[in-house]
C-alpha cells in the first residue's frame, strides 16, 4: 500500500542538457530546434571574428586585398563555411518558427514536413557556398 508520503518520487522532465544531446533520438523538429540553438550560439561566439572581417573589408583598399589573401586559406574558408551554414540554418529554422507562431503548420505531420524543409533549403545552399568557396564553381 502506498501513501502519498511513501510513493516513489515523480519523474521530473528538464531541458535536455548539452551533454545528453548525442544520446537522444530526436524527431526532425527536435533536431531543427537544438541545431537552431547551436547555430545561434556559434554565430554569437564568432561575432567578433565576423566584425573583424567586416572591418578589414572596409578600412582601405590595402586591408581589402589583405582580407582576400587571408580568406584564401583553407582553414579560414572552413570558418566562413561554418558561419554561412549557421546563418542559413538559423534563418530558415527561424522563419519556420515565425510561421508556427502564427499557428501555421502546427499539426504533427505538417511540423515534421516543415522540419525536413528546413534542411532541404539550408543544406543545398550551404553546399553551394562550399563549392563557391573551395573553387569548384
Amino acid at each position, binding site marked *: 500500500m502506498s501513501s502519498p508520503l511513501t510513493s516513489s518520487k515523480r519523474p521530473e522532465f528538464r531541458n535536455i*542538457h548539452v551533454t545528453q544531446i548525442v544520446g537522444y533520438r530526436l524527431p526532425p523538429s527536435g533536431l531543427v530546434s537544438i541545431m537552431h540553438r547551436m547555430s*545561434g550560439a556559434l554565430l554569437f561566439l564568432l*561575432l567578433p571574428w565576423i*566584425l573583424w572581417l567586416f*572591418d578589414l573589408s572596409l*578600412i*582601405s583598399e590595402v586591408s581589402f586585398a589583405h582580407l582576400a589573401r587571408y580568406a584564401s586559406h583553407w582553414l579560414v574558408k572552413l570558418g566562413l563555411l561554418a558561419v554561412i551554414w549557421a546563418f542559413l540554418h538559423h534563418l530558415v529554422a527561424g522563419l519556420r518558427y*515565425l510561421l508556427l507562431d502564427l499557428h501555421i503548420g502546427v499539426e504533427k505531420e505538417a511540423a515534421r514536413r516543415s522540419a525536413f524543409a528546413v534542411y532541404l533549403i539550408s543544406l543545398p545552399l550551404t553546399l553551394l557556398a562550399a563549392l563557391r568557396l573551395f573553387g569548384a564553381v
Partner: protein
Amino acid sequence: MAIGSKRLVVGAHYGLGNWLAQRISALLIAAYFVFLLIALLVTRSASYEGWAGLFSNLWMKVITLVALFALFYHAWVGVRDIWMDYVKPTGVRLGLQVLTVLWLLFCAVWAVQILWRV
C-alpha cells in the same frame, strides 16, 4: 536562490516583452539581409570601390547599424535563454549574463567605429 518565501531569482521577466522583441529583431535582421543582397546585386559591388562606396552613404550606415543593434539584442535574448536553461547556480548564471551584456556592448561600440570610419 530565493528572495522572500515565494520568489525565485531566475533572471526572466516572465513576460511578453522578450518574446516579442526576439521576433521583431529577427524580422529586422532578415529584412536587412534581403536588402543588402539586393543592394549588392544592383550596385555590383564586388570590388573594394563598390563595397566601401555602398557603406560610405549615411543611409547605409544608419540602416546597417539599426540591423546590427537588432542583431545584438537578438543575441542577448537568445544567449540569456541558453544560460537560463543550462546554468543553474544563480551566481554563475548572473556572471555569465553580465559578461554577455558587456561583450555585446563592446561589439556594438566597435560596429559604430567600423561603420563611421568608411
